[in-house]
């Protein structure tokens, strides 16, 4: 018993390589199980993406179901920009800040039926005296919205005009584009007199 390896090798039956044949049903069952496993994997794995949960099957489908269309999305886009840029002075709820910026909530300039003036203010800035809700403000606003794209500025203005009790209609990016084309190179608006001079 010095070389016991021999005991473990299966007894050769016939020629080498023609060992006991695998039954056909085992082979077929393995294939069926592999197929079912593949189907289950495809439906339930989410391709191991941590973002994908039931009922979504993969990242592309999840992407397709992101709510992005319609007025809600525009308001959301506007709120995002407003919170980043405008809210520091005008307040997160458009309430304004004494000595810094007049309120936007309920302001007659915001709720104006035409919106040319409102589109010009963030692009040109506003210097000097202006009356908002019966209160006189004499401040200077930089052209904070000059760097925003047409659609972003339109979204911000739409958001402002439809929030905190304001009842203005929507501002489209085409409106912004038209106004923007007409005021290139203009100086800041000189207060209320300047605002009133803007043709609606």
């Amino acid at each position: 018993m010095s070389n016991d390896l021999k005991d473990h090798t299966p007894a050769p039956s016939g020629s080498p390589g023609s060992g006991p044949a695998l039954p056909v049903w085992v082979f077929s069952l393995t294939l069926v199980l592999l197929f079912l496993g593949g189907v289950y994997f495809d439906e339930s794995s989410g391709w191991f993406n941590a973002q994908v949960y039931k009922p979504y099957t993969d990242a592309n489908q999840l992407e397709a179901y992101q709510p992005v269309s319609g007025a809600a999305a525009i308001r959301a886009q506007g709120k995002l920009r407003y919170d980043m840029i405008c809210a520091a002075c005008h307040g997160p709820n458009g309430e304004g800040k004494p000595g810094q910026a007049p309120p936007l909530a309920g302001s007659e300039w915001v709720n104006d039926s035409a919106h040319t003036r409102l589109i010009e203010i963030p692009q040109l800035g506003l210097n000097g005296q202006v009356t908002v809700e019966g209160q006189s403000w004499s401040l200077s606003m930089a052209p904070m919205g000059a760097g925003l794209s047409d659609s972003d500025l339109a979204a911000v203005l739409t958001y402002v005009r439809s929030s905190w009790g304001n009842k203005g209609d929507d501002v489209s990016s085409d409106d912004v584009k038209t106004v923007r084309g007409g005021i290139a190179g203009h100086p800041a608006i000189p207060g209320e007199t300047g605002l009133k001079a803007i043709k609606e």
Partner: protein
Amino acid sequence: MSPGIERGEIVNTGCRIFLVSFVALGLSWGAFVIAPAIQLGTQKQTSVLNSSEIYPEQRPGDATMGLQVYRRAGCAACHTMQLQQDGVQCDVVITGMGKTPGAVSNLLSSLSLKSLDKDDAQSASDQITAAGGKTEIHIVPTGGDVARGWGSRHSVSEDFLWDYPVQLGSVRMGPDLADVGSRLGSFSWQLEHLYAPQAVTKNSTMPPFRYLFVVQKPVNGVPSPDALQLPAQFAPPAGYEVVPTMAAKKLAAYLLSLHANVPLHDAPFTMASAAPAKSQAKKQ
């Protein structure tokens, strides 16, 4: 040494058993411990869809400690904290008839707008837009838990970012609590419910957690501002009041901090209204 087996043979077998079990355990350790840790171990706060808000907000200190009370009281034995969502559907909502309302309403009579999949919803929306109307596509999660009003979407890993240890639970003797702070957002309601569940929820099978409260005579004759307002059936004897302990307040604060009600990238849906949490709270 039994006859017929040599010393070297045993070593060979043992080595093989060791190697095979090492590989098997190593693979499952990698797949079930390491891989999830790589994916979610560095989980951070995420932003709410279409918003600059961050989710989830860090809990206040008492709510953080309330998790340990939740754990100690064994709430997870009867309550889960994981919402399921079976499906998702799209509803096309008309937001404006445009300049040709006749054409749009003609179209509407032949289109179905509810319970569509994404492609059908998009095509219906495109047709209405082409006719001059304005539409929105609302993403609506469906499934038993949503229908029961337990939450608006399925639970995701972000929901548990501040929970340690996570109290998922597996038995639903009571309702799911993943979004309970939005559904039952009143501090006094939560305390009364802990002291006497049947006082606020008729036919509740929840046991009362009276040890979280003290029944006492008003200290120096001055009633505590925290004392519970209970219906006569559950009220303490005359001259006594029920005052929550710190543990009860922490637990209630923790329950109120459970909000799984905002849309996230991995759980998208269209918010029904601007502030569902607040409108729910007023109902209590």
